[in-house]
């Protein structure tokens, strides 16, 4: 989008706002659509939402406004998304951790604020398999060496994460449970700090998205031991998958678009088609490629199937972590 289009977009916003409320049955969307971004700007959902919004705007012919509602590791935004008016003008961009909140609440005996049933999935845009990485000050070259060392000295090695029950904590919990390991957990307040802790050798292992770790993998500062995808990632063809190594674990950092429960079918259909078109756009694909991932678009039915299976994994991980 160049400057002229931006000016035009702003003018459209102004015109739409000036037009005021829409009483009559009109074609959806007839005014700006809001995407809730539940993480701080620059976070996993935001970096997908902004390029997506840029290619969606000419398709739906309405501005897409991204509203940041960060808080509680994405819970605040998800709750706003669930409670939003189901008219299709407030949609939610969320990531894999959306399935964990209800389970955490149940674990702690707190009232459950929302479940996955409160959302209608629209589309999945990316799904980046997680990868387990160690820093170059550690001798481990393979996952086996790592697990042997961890077994020899329980609670000696430290893994960092983006925070309790965060997207970087859950896959590690699944792996530790499957391998029967005990590691110390060093929670930080985000993906960046978790990586910093690993690079500074204040932690020795981390489950990261390939996109975030790739720069350091190429410079040799980090080494990848195993990948959480079903197949090997094209970005890391030499790294074995967990399944190859005998652990039945899969985990992806995916980003999808959701509507609140009760949104009319015709509205969902419009957004599904628009999303399909946007995901096929070369500009969007390029932006995702630059982020280090490929567009992994899934339309509603396939996304729903994937999400149901994924929610089970996330709930298992939350239970594996247990009450702290």
């Amino acid at each position, binding site marked *: 989008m160049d400057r002229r289009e931006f000016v035009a977009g*702003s003018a459209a*916003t*102004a015109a739409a706002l000036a037009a*005021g*409320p829409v009483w009559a049955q009109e074609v959806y969307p007839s005014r700006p659509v809001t995407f809730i971004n539940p993480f701080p700007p620059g976070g996993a959902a935001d970096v997908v939402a902004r390029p997506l919004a840029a290619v969606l705007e000419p398709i739906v012919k309405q*501005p897409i406004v991204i509203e940041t509602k960060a808080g509680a590791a994405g819970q605040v935004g998800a709750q706003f998304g669930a409670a939003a008016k189901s008219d299709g003008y407030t949609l939610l961009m969320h990531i894999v951790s959306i399935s964990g909140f209800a389970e955490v609440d149940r674990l702690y005996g707190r009232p459950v604020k929302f479940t996955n049933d409160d959302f209608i999935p629209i589309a999945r845009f990316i799904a980046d398999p997680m990868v387990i990485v160690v820093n170059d000050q550690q001798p481990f070259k393979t996952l086996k060496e790592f697990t042997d060392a961890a077994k020899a000295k329980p609670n000696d090695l430290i893994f960092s994460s983006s925070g309790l029950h965060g997207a970087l904590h859950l896959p590690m919990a699944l792996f530790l449970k499957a391998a029967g390991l005990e590691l110390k957990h060093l929670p930080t307040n985000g993906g960046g700090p978790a990586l910093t802790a690993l690079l500074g050798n204040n932690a020795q292992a981390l489950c990261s998205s390939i996109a975030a770790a790739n720069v350091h993998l190429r410079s040799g500062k980090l080494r990848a031991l195993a990948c959480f995808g079903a197949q090997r990632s094209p970005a890391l063809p030499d790294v074995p998958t967990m399944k190859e190594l005998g652990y039945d674990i899969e985990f992806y950092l995916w980003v999808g678009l959701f509507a609140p429960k009760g949104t009319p079918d015709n509205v969902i259909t419009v957004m599904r088609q628009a999303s399909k078109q946007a995901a096929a756009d070369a500009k969007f694909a390029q932006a995702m490629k630059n982020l280090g991932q490929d567009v992994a678009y899934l339309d509603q039915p396939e996304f729903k199937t994937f999400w149901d299976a994924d929610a089970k994994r996330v709930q298992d991980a939350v239970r594996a972590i247990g009450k702290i």
Partner: protein
Amino acid sequence: MKLRRDHVAGGFFVIAGAAILAISSDLPFGTLASPGAGMLPMLLLGLLMVLGAVLFVHAGESPPLAAIDWSDIRHALPVIVVACVAAAAYTALGFLAAMSLMLFFLVFVVERRPLLPAIAFSIGATVLAYAVFAVLLKSPLPRGILGF
């Protein structure tokens, strides 16, 4: 004993510290190897109460409580009440309505300025701010039940 300023200030922090400590009982202190959610708050509350007590003890050096000038309360009270009402109405009425009403009330009723300038000012300023925030910076401002 004459009540002095720091008797009130110190006393407040001791009592507030104790009160918060009382409602923090659900937060585990943890151990040194795995510090709990309550560790820092409890250390801080303890420190706060000690500091409050020191302030209380040395209160003799502070001016008497009666010396505090409260004359500005006649300004502060209406202003904060109007601001609170405006905040309560902010999401329901929307930015334009709530803010222009607030400006009008403050300028016309609280400050007793002439009616016409007050109306012009309150509408002009909100529309200008709306233009800057919502249109130029593309930041969503709340739209009220009236649709603007």
